[in-house]
């Protein structure tokens, strides 16, 4: 079946989508919002996204890749935003395997080897 991608924005949409695909391997990449030209306010996210996308084919069959825009810079900087509180995210970009403690944060997302390891690890 391969894998599929879902693009979401904001915490509620993320949670709804993740719950919808419960039972399948779910990987999520959290990035800062993009402007009208499609550029994120988060420079590390700009670097990480193509690296991650290049490794997506390594995800196991039936995987769901959720590409999630978290919000604008001000929202993200708020220490009480839902991503920080509920998902325990500490930074963007974060790439994680939903429901497990496995994640890569910031510069870790720049390394294709680590991204591949996250996607293929049991």
């Amino acid at each position, binding site marked *: 079946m391969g894998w599929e991608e879902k693009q979401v924005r904001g915490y509620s949409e993320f949670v709804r989508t993740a719950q919808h695909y419960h039972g399948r391997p779910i990987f999520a990449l959290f990035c800062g919002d993009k402007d009208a030209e499609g550029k994120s306010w988060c420079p590390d996210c700009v670097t990480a996204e193509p690296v991650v996308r290049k490794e997506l084919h390594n995800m196991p069959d039936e995987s769901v890749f959720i590409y999630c825009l978290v919000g604008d810079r001000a929202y993200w900087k708020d220490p009480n935003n839902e991503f920080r509180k509920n998902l325990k995210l500490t930074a963007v970009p974060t790439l994680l395997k939903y429901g497990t*403690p*496995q*994640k*890569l944060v910031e510069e*870790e997302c720049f*390394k294709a*080897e*680590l991204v591949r*390891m996250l996607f293929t*690890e049991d």
Partner: protein
Amino acid sequence: MKHFVIHQSCHSLELERGIFLLGEGSQRHSIHLPSIMCMCSLHNGEGAQKLQEGQWHVTAEGSQPFGFVQEEQIEEDEKTLKAYKEGSLQKQQEMNGHTVVPHSYDYDLIVIGGGSGGLAAAKEAAKYEKKVMVLDFVTPTPLGNSWGLGGTCVNVGCIPKKLMHQAALLGQALQDSRKFGWQFPEEVKHNWMTMTESVQNYVGSLNWGYRVALREKKVTYENAYGEFVGPHTVKATNKRGVEKLYTAERFLIATGERPRYLGIPGDKEYCISSDDLFSLPYCPGKTLVVGASYVALECAGFLAGVGLDVTVMVRSILLRGFDQDMANKIGEYMEEHGINFIREFVPIKVEQIKEGTPGILKVTSKSTKGNEIIEGEYNTVLLAIGRDACTRKIGLDKVGVIINEKTGKIPVNDKEQTNVPYIYAIGDILQDKLELTPVAIQAGRLLVRRLYAGATTKCDYVNVPTTVFTPLEYGACGYTEEAAVEKFGEENIEVYHSHFWPLEWTVPSRDNNKCYAKIICNIQDSERVIGFHVLGPNAGEVTQGFAAAMKCGITKEQLDNTIGIHPVCAEIFTTLTVTKRSGENTLLSGC
């Protein structure tokens, strides 16, 4: 079928069954190639001599030069021989990226065991740009349980143990808090699953963290069972049974230990061990803990602390090897706090009365002092009678590493070297060394620095502090009273001691005069503090600082000259006056 081409590159050769000795002089090393078909191209082109599987004997006269090339996939003998004669084989190998140098190994260092010691050593070696591999594999428990990278401490030892101990302490704190004004319903319940999930989540993040760290440091990690198959060679078998061979210049054995079973009917089928407890997917219920080790007492402690009915079955003494004066106080405290002790009995049979999670088990036990038999029913039986080194099934005989046949432990010199010069060992498997994570880590790091960074510092195993996380915590550093008496003579040591009552325990009316402090001093050496013992809250935090002081050689006088911090438990050590010798009362009144 792998074809290993052995071709000319060095001078002398000896051949025995399956053992090829290559190289010259001190560069010689032997390669043992078990079930592999081998082909030899002889130097003077006399023709290929095919060795059948299992048949090793090859007649070789004079100086038949041989070299060793790995995993060269070559289909036909004739083709190879032709290529060799034409000198193109070497080129082909070089083109394929195979090194033709006879003495090159796959790795500088292969570490067998990805626990506290192994990982610390591997990461350190990578710092010096060495090519390192870590082989870590967890043989599932009899009940099928397994875990990720990190070894015992991270997965089924120190980390989950301390977290569950904390869960129990918090339960106690909740009760204490009422007297400090907190108001909440009479009954406060504990949820085993919530605790276990939180603990496992943290452990999982550590497993992942190690994976990332190794990858970032370019340490090759394989989740595979490593065993020696011949000199400088290990076989790694993954969980799917796929085998690979690797060679290295040096090896580090850090395989650790696993819980021992009783060897009685029903033990492996129905009993659990610490390997299972910290991820048990159901509340253990009424539990029988068999054993008197610190593992047994710590587990019994937190299980009771989260509200379970716990019984500890002890064959003889508590905490063998620890200061017995302190061990008995620990046992007394546990008994006074609702943990049942059955002393001088051993289980002889475990039967399942009812299946379930948990089910009901019937345990039949026999007295060690007579013929009395007793029976008891429990939901869970936790065996904590000791741990055995994982050294018997890793092919040590194939490389000649000597182990203590009785205990399985490996004797090493003060450089952690086994009797085989290129094979080292660290951690719990070492004979006569403390089985502690920080000891393994320190030994591993220093060993690697000596090997690759020209350092000379050896691991200092003297005055290593330790803490037992029983309900009443026990911190210690240096000599037990028994060992001090034996080494120095009773008349040459002075034992200062006192009970103390933590301030935080006063308001909630918790035990006074249960917490206890003791130091042992060497009279002939300026009353140097050679033993430190504390029973009380935060014992580990208290002990760490004093361990550093002892490393600096602190004397009783210096201790007395240190002004205490008030009001904390540790200050008692700055005001000890009563000696055991005097026989005076050590019960304290308030400050």
